[in-house]
C-alpha cells in the first residue's frame, strides 16, 4: 500500500568535482540502495506547532477584507465609506441566517487582526543578530520583565539605604492604593507579553511583585505596579433603577417587570398608604390561598420595612403558583428600588432579591425516563 521508493546514492571517492580531472582520470562510483517508504517522508504534524502566518499573508487577508466590505455595503445598498463592524454583522446575519445555537459557529466576517492570533515578527535584523538581548533564553519578554522588575526592587532598596544613611527613613510613607484592583491573571499577562508562560513563572512574577509592594518606599515605582494590575469593576449597582413617575393625582408610582421559569409579571407600586395588593384584578388572598406564596410577595416590603406604605397593582401570566409568586417578588423588588436609597438597594441586591432565578425545566433526554432518571436497570 505504501509505494516504496528506491533511491540510489552515489558516493565518489575523494573530494572533487564530478568528472575526470587530468591527474586522476578514473573515479570509482559506488551505488548504495536506499529503501524508504512514504511514511518516512510524511510531515510530523505534531512537531510543527501552531500554524504560523507570514506578515504578507495577513496583509493580503486585510486587503481582501476591505474589498469584501465594500462589496457587502453595495449589496445592502449602503454607503461603502461609513460601513462599520456592526453594519457588517447585521448584513451577514441577514444574508446568511443561521439557526445554530453556538454563536461562534455562525458565519462571521471580522477584521483579520481579530481572527488571526497575534504573532511575533522576525526577531533578527539583516545580519541575523537578534534584536533582544535575552533572545537566547527562549522566553524573552517574560525574562526581560523579571529583569526590569528586579532592577526596580534594587533601586528602591538603594534609595532606602541612602535615606537610612541620612537618618530620614520612615515607614509612614505614601502607600499605593490597591484596594480596588487585582493582579493580572496568567491569561492577561500572556496577552501582554505575546508569549506563553507556565504557572510556575507566573507565581514567581506575583511573588516578586508582592515583595516589592512590601517595601516601605514602593510608591517610587507606582506607575509600573499599576500597569500590571487590573481595576475591579464595581460589583454594586448595575441595576437599572425604574424611573419614579407621578400620575395625575400627584401620587408617586413606578413600574417593573419580573420573570421566573415560564411566568412573566408586571407590577405598579403606588405610594398610596393602605397596603392593598391586587393581582390580575383579584385580591391576593383569593389568588394565592397558600401562605408560602403570600410570604414571597411580602418579603421585599418586609426587608425594607415598608410594609403598609404601598399599593401594589400586579399582572401575572404563565407558570404555576410558585413560579408566579417568584416572578411577582422580583418585579416588586425592582419597583421598590426607585423608592429606596442606594445603600438599601445594595442591601437588597446582597440579600438576593434583585437576582433573577436562572433555573428552568431541564429537557427530557432519549434513553432515559426523565431529565435525570434512568430506566430501571435489570441485571438480566
Amino acid at each position, binding site marked *: 500500500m505504501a509505494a516504496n521508493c528506491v533511491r540510489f546514492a552515489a558516493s565518489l571517492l575523494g573530494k572533487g568535482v564530478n568528472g575526470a580531472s587530468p591527474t586522476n582520470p578514473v573515479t570509482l562510483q559506488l551505488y548504495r540502495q536506499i529503501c524508504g517508504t512514504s511514511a518516512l517522508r510524511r510531515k510530523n504534524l505534531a512537531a510543527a506547532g501552531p500554524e504560523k502566518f507570514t506578515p504578507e499573508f495577513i496583509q493580503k487577508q486585510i486587503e481582501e477584507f476591505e474589498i469584501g466590505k465594500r462589496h457587502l455595503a453595495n449589496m445592502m445598498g449602503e454607503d461603502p465609506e461609513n460601513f462599520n463592524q456592526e453594519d457588517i454583522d447585521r448584513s451577514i446575519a441577514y444574508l446568511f441566517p443561521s439557526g445554530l445555537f453556538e454563536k461562534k459557529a455562525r458565519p462571521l466576517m471580522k477584521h483579520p487582526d481579530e481572527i488571526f492570533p497575534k504573532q511575533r515578527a522576525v526577531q533578527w*535584523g539583516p545580519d541575523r543578530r*537578534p534584536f533582544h*538581548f535575552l533572545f537566547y533564553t527562549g522566553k524573552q519578554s517574560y525574562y526581560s520583565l523579571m529583569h526590569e522588575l528586579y532592577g526596580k526592587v534594587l533601586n528602591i532598596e538603594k534609595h532606602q539605604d541612602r535615606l537610612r544613611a541620612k537618618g530620614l527613613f520612615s515607614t509612614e510613607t505614601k502607600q499605593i492604593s490597591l484596594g480596588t484592583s487585582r493582579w493580572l491573571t496568567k491569561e492577561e499577562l500572556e496577552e501582554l507579553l505575546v508569549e506563553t508562560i507556565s504557572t510556575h513563572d507566573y507565581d514567581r512574577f506575583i511573588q516578586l511583585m508582592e515583595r516589592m509592594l512590601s517595601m516601605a518606599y514602593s510608591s517610587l515605582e507606582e506607575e509600573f505596579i499599576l500597569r500590571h494590575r487590573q481595576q475591579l469593576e464595581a460589583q454594586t449597582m448595575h441595576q437599572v433603577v425604574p424611573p419614579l413617575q407621578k400620575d395625575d393625582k400627584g401620587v408617586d408610582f413606578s413600574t417593573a417587570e419580573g420573570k421566573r421559569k415560564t411566568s412573566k409579571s408586571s407590577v405598579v407600586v403606588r405610594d398610596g398608604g393602605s397596603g392593598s395588593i391586587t393581582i390580575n384584578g383579584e385580591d391576593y388572598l383569593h389568588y394565592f390561598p397558600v401562605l408560602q406564596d403570600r410570604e414571597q410577595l411580602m418579603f421585599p416590603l418586609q426587608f425594607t420595612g415598608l410594609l403598609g406604605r404601598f399599593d401594589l397593582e400586579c399582572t401575572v401570566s404563565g407558570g404555576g403558583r410558585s413560579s408566579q409568586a417568584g416572578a411577582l417578588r422580583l418585579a416588586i423588588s425592582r419597583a421598590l428600588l426607585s423608592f429606596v436609597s442606594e445603600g438599601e438597594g445594595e442591601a437588597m441586591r446582597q440579600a438576593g432579591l434583585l437576582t433573577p432565578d436562572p433555573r428552568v425545566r431541564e429537557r427530557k433526554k432519549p434513553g432515559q425516563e426523565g431529565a435525570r432518571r434512568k430506566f430501571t436497570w435489570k441485571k438480566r
Partner: protein
Amino acid sequence: MAARALTKGLLGLRHFRGATVKFSNTGHHVATSSSIKSSEPQTNAVTEKILNLPLEKPDLFRVSELFSLKDLFDARVHLGHKKGCRHRLMEPYLYDSSLDHDIIDLDKTVEHLRLALNTTAETAYRGGIILFVSRRRQFCHLVETTAKDCEEYAHTRYWQGGLLTNAHIQYSPGVRLPDLIIFLSTLNNVFQQHVAIRDAAKMNIPTIGVVDSNCNPSLITYPVPGNDDTPVAMELYCRLFKMTINRAKDKRRQMELLHGLSKPSTSSS
C-alpha cells in the same frame, strides 16, 4: 599561535558566515553571499583587510593593560573552595592550599585571562554573537546588565534542553547561534556542570569559562581559573569583558570609517 588557531577555527568552520556578515559603509542591507561576490569586489578586499588586521599583531586590543595581578588579588580571585570540594583536573591550576583552603595560581590566571579577553575582543571585532551564561542567582542581574551594556546576549535562567542542539525548533528556522559563550560560573544550582558546556562543544562553539576549584575545566576552550563566588570577583570579570567588547567594537567602527573615507579614491590602507 592561539591567534592562528583562531583563524583556522573561524575561517575554516564558518567562512560562509564571514561572507554573509558584511557591513557596508552606507548602511545595512540584506545581502546573500552570491550578491556580495557579484557586486563590489573592492569592498570584499577592504573588508578582508579589516578582518585580518588583529591577526597580524599579538595584542592589537591591548587587553593585558586592562588588569594586573594586583587587581586580581584585590578582587580575591585567588580564593578557591576547600580541599574536599577540589576537582582533580583543577590541580595544575592551584598554587597551594593553606588550612585546607585552595589558592589558585594567579600567574596562570593572568595568562589564561589574557587569552580569553583576546578571544572575546577578536570575536566582537568580527561582529560575532557573544552569549553570557551564569546560573548564580546572586549575580543574574549583574550579568544581564553587563550583556545589555555591551549589546551582547545573556542567559542566566533555567536552561531548556534543546536551546543550542535543537535550535531550529526552539526558535524559528534560520536562527543564528552564538559564536562565543562566556561562562561566568560553570556550575548550575545543583553543583553539576552546566549543560551548555557540553552542548557548545557539540555545536563547535568556542567557550570561555571562569572555573573555580570545584569545576571541571576539560570541555571548556579557554578556561580561566578563578573565584566565581565573591561579588567583587564577579564585578571585576564583568567589567573586564564589557571593556574588551566595547573596545573591540569601537576599533571596528574606527577601521570601517577609516577605510570608508579612503574607499572612493584608491584604497591605500
